[in-house]
C-alpha cells in the first residue's frame, strides 16, 4: 500500500512540469525574444539528448556507440525516414556484434 502512495506522489510531481506551462501559457502572446527561445528549444534539446549519451550506450566500449551514431547520422543525412534510421542503426549494430566487434 505504501508503494502505491509513493507511485501516486511520483505521478503528481511528474505531471506538474508537464501541465503547467501548456495550460498557463495557452492563448498568451509572449515577447518575441521568449518566443524565439522557445522555438529554439527542440533543436537544442536534441543536441543535449544525443550527446554525450549516444557514445556511452555500452559503457565499456565507446566504439559501439560511435559505430551506432555513425550509422544513424549517415542514414539520416542520406534522407532516410526516421523509422529507417532507427531500424538501420539497430541492424548495423546487430551485425557489428555478430561479427565480434
Amino acid at each position: 500500500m505504501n508503494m502505491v502512495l509513493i507511485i501516486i506522489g511520483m505521478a503528481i510531481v511528474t505531471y506538474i512540469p508537464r501541465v503547467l506551462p501548456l495550460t498557463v501559457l495557452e492563448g498568451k502572446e509572449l515577447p518575441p525574444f521568449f518566443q524565439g527561445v522557445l522555438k529554439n528549444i527542440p533543436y537544442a534539446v536534441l543536441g543535449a539528448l544525443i550527446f554525450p549519451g549516444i557514445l556511452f550506450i555500452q559503457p565499456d566500449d565507446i566504439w559501439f556507440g560511435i559505430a551506432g551514431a555513425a550509422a544513424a547520422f549517415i542514414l539520416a543525412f542520406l534522407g532516410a525516414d526516421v523509422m529507417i534510421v532507427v531500424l538501420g542503426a539497430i541492424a548495423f549494430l546487430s551485425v557489428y556484434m555478430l561479427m565480434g566487434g
Partner: protein
Amino acid sequence: MQMAAVSEQKSGFKAGIKAGISIAVGYLPVALTFGLLAKTTGLTLFESVLMSLLVFAGAAQYISLSLIAAGAGAAVIIFNTFIVNIRHFLMSASLNEKMEPETRAKKSLYAFGLTDETFTVIATREGKTTTGFALGVMLIAYGSWVVNTGIGHVIGASLPEFLQQAMSIALYAMFVGLLVPSLKKEMKVAYLAGLAAVLNSMFTLTGLLDTGWAIAASTLISAMAVEVLTGLRKGAALK
C-alpha cells in the same frame, strides 16, 4: 475539399500514431528492462505496471528503483522524481508555442504524455501541430511503455543479449533522424544542437550537474545564446 481532407489526415491522429512508432520501438527494450528490474527490486506486477501507467517517465522510474533498493524514504523518492523531470517545464513551454489553440481541458490531457521522445517528435514537425497528432504520438508511445513494462515483469527477462544491446541505440537514432533534416536546412539548428551537445557533455562528464539538470541547463543556455546572437546579427544587418 478532397485536398483539405487529405492534409487533415496527414496532420491528424493517424499520422501521429505513425510518427510515434519509432518511439514505441525505442521504448521496447527500456520498458522490458524496467519491468525486469522492478521485479528484482521487489515490486509486484501491479505496482510496476501502475508506476508506468501513472508516471510514464523512464529516467525517473529507473532512479526510483535504485532509491527503493537503497531503502530511501517516500519523500526522497518523490523529490528526486520532481528534480529529474524539471526539464519538462522547458519542453511544455516550448510545445505550447507549437500547438494549435485548444481548450485547457484537452491540453491538460495531452500534457500527461509529454516525454523527451514525444516532445521531440511533435516539436520538430513543420508548422502548427494539431491536438490529434500529439495524442496519436503519445498514445502509441504510452502503450508500448506500459505493455512492455508488464511483459518484462511477467517473463522476468529482457530481449536476447545481442538484440537488447543493439536496440539500445534506438532512441538515440531517432533523435538523430529528427535532427539531421533540419540541420541540413538551417545553420541555426547546427549552432543550437552543437552548443547544447558541448555544454551537456561538459556538465555530465565533469560531474558538475546530474543528468536531469544538465539537459535542462544546456538546452536553455544554448536556446538563449543563439537567440541573442541571431538578434544581434539581424540588428547589425539593419544598420
